C-alpha cells in the first residue's frame, strides 16, 4: 500500500483514477486510523462507516466503467460535528444534542458528495463551537497530535487534529472568531476562513450567524484551494451567501506579481509570545528577500475586537440556542412537570458551563435597557472595524500577523480563566467581525517543536491572494 498518511487529496484522487489503489482501500485505511489513532486523540464523535464505504464503492465503479470522476473522488474528509449530515448524529459537542440525528444534508455535504468526496466521520469540538481549546466538549477534550498533553486549539480541534495526524487529508471546521485558524496554528496545518458568505451556512448549526463560516483545513495549499473551489459560491438556501464569480483557485496558485503587505503594529504588542513573533519576523524577511514590499500599518480598532465579539456573538447565540428546549429533539428532562421546569431542567443539564455563560451574557446584552449600551454600540464599533480594514486594503494586498499569541497551551491551563481563553482569539476575531478572509499557514515552530502559524488576511473575496501567498511560503 502507498503511504496513505502522507498522501494529499490530489495524490489520492490520482492513485484511484489510475487504479493504483481503490477508493474502498483508501477509505478503509482512513476509517482504521480514525478508529485507532483518532480514538487515541479523541478526535471523532462518529465514524460514518456505512455511507463512507458505499460512497467509495460508487467511486470505484465509476473508475472501472470509465465514467468521469469528481475532483475529490475517493478523498476521505472529516466534518466538524456541527455540520448536518443525514442519518448521523450531529451533537455539536453537547449533551443537549447527544441523540439528535438530522434528516437533511448541509449544502456543504451535497457539494462534497457531488465531487465524489467520501465523508468518513464527524469530529469532536468545543460545545456549540464555543471555546478555543476543545476542552468544552461533552465528549471530552481532544489531544494535540504532536503534544498529547496540550490542546489542539478550538473549537474545531477534532478536525485540525485529524488532518495533522494524517487520518484524513482534508477536514472542515467552522469559524466564528478563529475556530479553524487557531487550531490550524496549534496543530501545524493550513486553515482558511473564507469571506463571510463564501461557503453556504445551510446545515451548519448556528453559533453566531453573522460571523459563522464553514472553513476548510488541509496539509497543503493545493488541497485547500481545491476543496474551497468545490464548496464555495452562492446557495439559494442561504440568503447571506454571496454570488461571487470565484476564480479557478487550484490552477491559479502561482503568482508573478509582487505583493504589498501590511504589518499592523497592534498585532505585535504586549502578550505576544517571543517565539511566535520570531516566526512571523522570519516569514517577513523571507518574503522581503523574494521581493515583496512591506509597510507598517495601524488598525487601532483591533483592541476592541474581543469586547465587540463577546457582545455580538453571545447575543446571536442566545437566540440561536433557544431552540434547544427539550420539546422537539435531543435531551429532555422532567417532562412531567410544568413547561417552564422542563425548559429549565433540560437546559441546565444539557448545556455546559461555557455555553451557559454565553447564553446569559447574550440575553443580558439584548435586554431592554441594556440593548443600546451593548448590542447597538458593539454593532457600531464592528462597522468601524470593517471600514478600517477596507481603508487599509486600499493600500495593501495582504496583512501579516501571528495567528495566535502563543503556541498550543496545556490541557487545563486556561480552562478556569475564561478571559485568558478569550484573549487567545484576539488576532483572529477582527477578520471574523469584518467578514474578510484569513488563512493560517504552518510556518515554523517553538524551540520545543510546537507548531506556529502565520496569519494572512485579505480584503473581501480575495481568497486567491491568500492561496497564492501560502503557496509561495510552502515552496
Amino acid at each position: 500500500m502507498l503511504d496513505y498518511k502522507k498522501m494529499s487529496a490530489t495524490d489520492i484522487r490520482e492513485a484511484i483514477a489510475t487504479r493504483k489503489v481503490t477508493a474502498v482501500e483508501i477509505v478503509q485505511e482512513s476509517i482504521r486510523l480514525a478508529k485507532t489513532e483518532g480514538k487515541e486523540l479523541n478526535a471523532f464523535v462518529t465514524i460514518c462507516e456505512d455511507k463512507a464505504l458505499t460512497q467509495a464503492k460508487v467511486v470505484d465503479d465509476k473508475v472501472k466503467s470509465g465514467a468521469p470522476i469528481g475532483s475529490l473522488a475517493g478523498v476521505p474528509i472529516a466534518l466538524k460535528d456541527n455540520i448536518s449530515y443525514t442519518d448521523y448524529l450531529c451533537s455539536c459537542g453537547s449533551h443537549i444534542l447527544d441523540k439528535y440525528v438530522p434528516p437533511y444534508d448541509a449544502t456543504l455535504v451535497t457539494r462534497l458528495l457531488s465531487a465524489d468526496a467520501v465523508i468518513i466521520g464527524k469530529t469532536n469540538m468545543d460545545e456549540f463551537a464555543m471555546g478555543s481549546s476543545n476542552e468544552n466538549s461533552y465528549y471530552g477534550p481532544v489531544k494535540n497530535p504532536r503534544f498529547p498533553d496540550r490542546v489542539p486549539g478550538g473549537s474545531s480541534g477534532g478536525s485540525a487534529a485529524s488532518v495533522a495526524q494524517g487520518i484524513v487529508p482534508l477536514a472542515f471546521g467552522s469559524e466564528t472568531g478563529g475556530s479553524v485558524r487557531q487550531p490550524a496554528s496549534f496543530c501545524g496545518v493550513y486553515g482558511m476562513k473564507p469571506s463571510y458568505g463564501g461557503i453556504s451556512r445551510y446545515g451548519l448549526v448556528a453559533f453566531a450567524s453573522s460571523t459563522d463560516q464553514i472553513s476548510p483545513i488541509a496539509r497543503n495549499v493545493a488541497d485547500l484551494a481545491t476543496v474551497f473551489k468545490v464548496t464555495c459560491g452562492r446557495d439559494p438556501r442561504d440568503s447571506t451567501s454571496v454570488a461571487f464569480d470565484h476564480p479557478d483557485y487550484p490552477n491559479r496558485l502561482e503568482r508573478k506579481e509582487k505583493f504589498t503587505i501590511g504589518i499592523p503594529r497592534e498585532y505585535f504588542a504586549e502578550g505576544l509570545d517571543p517565539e511566535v513573533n520570531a516566526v512571523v519576523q522570519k516569514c517577513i524577511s523571507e518574503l522581503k528577500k523574494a521581493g515583496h514590499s512591506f509597510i507598517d500599518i495601524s488598525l487601532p480598532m483591533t483592541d476592541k475586537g474581543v469586547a465587540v465579539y463577546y457582545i455580538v456573538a453571545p447575543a446571536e447565540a442566545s437566540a440561536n440556542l433557544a431552540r434547544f428546549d427539550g420539546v422537539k429533539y435531543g435531551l429532555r428532562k422532567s417532562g412531567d412537570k410544568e413547561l417552564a421546569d422542563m425548559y429549565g431542567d433540560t437546559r441546565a443539564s444539557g448545556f455546559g458551563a461555557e455555553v451557559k455563560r454565553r447564553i446569559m451574557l447574550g440575553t443580558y446584552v439584548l435586554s431592554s435597557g441594556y440593548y443600546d449600551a451593548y448590542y447597538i454600540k458593539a454593532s457600531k464599533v464592528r462597522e468601524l472595524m470593517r471600514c478600517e480594514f477596507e481603508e487599509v486594503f486600499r493600500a495593501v494586498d495582504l496583512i501579516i500577523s501571528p495567528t495566535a499569541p502563543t503556541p498550543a497551551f496545556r490541557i487545563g491551563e486556561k480552562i478556569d480563566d475564561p478571559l485568558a481563553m478569550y484573549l487567545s482569539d484576539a488576532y483572529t476575531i477582527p477578520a471574523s467581525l469584518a467578514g474578510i478572509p484569513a488563512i493560517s499557514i504552518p510556518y515554523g515552530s517553538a524551540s520545543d517543536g510546537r507548531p506556529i502559524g502565520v496569519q494572512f488576511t485579505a480584503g473581501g473575496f480575495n481568497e486567491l491572494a491568500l492561496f497564492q501567498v501560502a503557496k509561495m511560503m510552502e515552496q
Partner: protein
Amino acid sequence: MVGYQGEEKLSVVNGFEPVIGLEVHAQLATDTKIFCSCRSSYGEPPNTLTCPVCLGLPGALPVLNKKAVEFAMRMILATGGQIQPRSVFARKNYFYPDLPKGYQISQFDKPVGLDGVIKYRLESGEEKVCRLIRIHLEEDAGKSLHPEAGEAYTRVDLNRCGTPLIEIVAHADIRSPQEAYAYLLKLKQILQYTGVCTGDMEKGHLRCDANVSVRPEGQEKFGTRTEVKNMNSFKGVERALNYEITRQIELIRSGGSVTQATLLWDEKRGVAEMMRTKEESHDYRYFPEPDLVNLVVSHDWMEEVRRNLPELPDARAERFVSAYGIREYDAQVLTATRDLADYYEEVVTHAGDPKAASNWVQTELLGVINAAGENIATYKVRPNMLGELISKIGSGELSGKMAKIVFEEMTVSGRKAGEIIKEKGLVQISDDTAILKIIDEILAASPDNVAKYRSGKTNVFGFFVGQVMKATKGQANPEMVNKLLKEKLDG
C-alpha cells in the same frame, strides 16, 4: 350597568369616551410559506406541511418568499401607505412549544410599510377614517393542541409554522365597538379585493388584538389601556370591546383605576380574563435577524406591484354609479366583495341593462345564495347565464314573470335559460296577428261585457286581459295585449 342602549352618541358612554387601537394579523394567501417552500394550507393532517426550515431544525436557514413581500406591498399601497425602500427583519425571542426556533422572525423598528389610512362607513352611513401606523411582515407560529380530558400531553402541530402574516397596526382613532366592527369589515374587504388574505376570522386567517382605554368626555389625555386578545369573530370583537369598556368605566366610577394588563376574551362565557399584568410582560429582546439580508424594494418593483393592483372597493363603487347609472346604495351592496362585483359586471355585459342586472343580482340571486349558503364564485348559475336571461326580458322574448320561473328552474338544475324555455314552451307571443286572432275570439264570446265596456264601464277591461292571458297560457306579451285590446274595444 352602563350600556349603549338609548345613548345619543355611540362613542360616549355615561360621560366616558372609549379609545380603541386595533392590531390585526392577516395570514397572506400565498401558496407557500414565508421562509421555505412548504405549502401554506389549512386543515391538513398535523405536521405534514413541514421541512427543516419551518421545523427550526439546527442549521436550517430562512429564505424570504418574494410573493409574501408583494402581498404586503399590495396592502400597503391599497391603504395609501409608504413602502419602505429598505426594511429589516428582527428576531422576537420567547419560549413556547409551538415556536420551534425559540424566536419569531418579525420586523421591529424598520417595518416594510408606514402610514396609510382605512376609510370606512358606519351602518348609519357616516364615514370614518382610521390612520395606520405601520404594516409589517412576520411568520406565524404553530398550534398547541392542549390536552382534552384524559390526555397527558399538549400536542403541537407545526403546519401553520412559517405561514406569512402581515400585522396592520392602527392608531387609536376608533371610538366605539361599532366603529371597530365597521373598521374590521372594511379591512377585510380591502384584504379580499387585493387577494392578500381570505379575511376569514373564524379560521384564524384574520386575528385582532385591541388596545382599550376610556377617558372622561372632553379630556385629551388617554386613560390607562388594557390589551384584549383572543377574539375569534367580528361580532366577538364588538362584544369583547363592549365588555371591556363597560368594565373600565364601572371601575373608574366606583373609585378604582385601570391597571395596564393583557386580557383574554372568553367567547363562550362572554368575559375577558386577566392573562398578565405589565410587570409580567415579556422582554422580547428584539435584534436584527442575521440570517436574512435587508429587504430592499426597488422603485421598479413597487411600480410593478402598483400597476397590478386590482381596482379597490371604493373606486369600484364610484365607477358603478357613473358607468352603470345605478344608485350609490346599490353600488355599495354590489361591491361588498370582489366576487360579487365581478359577478355583477359579467351579468351586465350579457344582460345589456345595468339597472335590471343590479335588481336581479341583489334581489333574486343574493336571495337564493344567502338562503342556501352558497358561494357566489362557484354558484351554478354563472353570471353569463343570468345575463342571458335578463337580456330575454329586454328583447321581449320573456315577460318578467316568466323569467322568474325560468330563473327558479336554473337554480335547481343549473341549466341554461334557453334550454328551459324550449322545454317548457315558455316563448312569449308578441305576434300581432296571433294575439288579434285570440282577442277577436274572446270578444265574440262575451258580447255582454263588450257592451258594458262600450257603455262606459271600463273596469271590465281587466276581465278581457285575463281571458287573453288564460287562452295563451300567460305567454302573450302583456303590453301588446293591453294595446291591441284597447284599440279593438275603443275603435
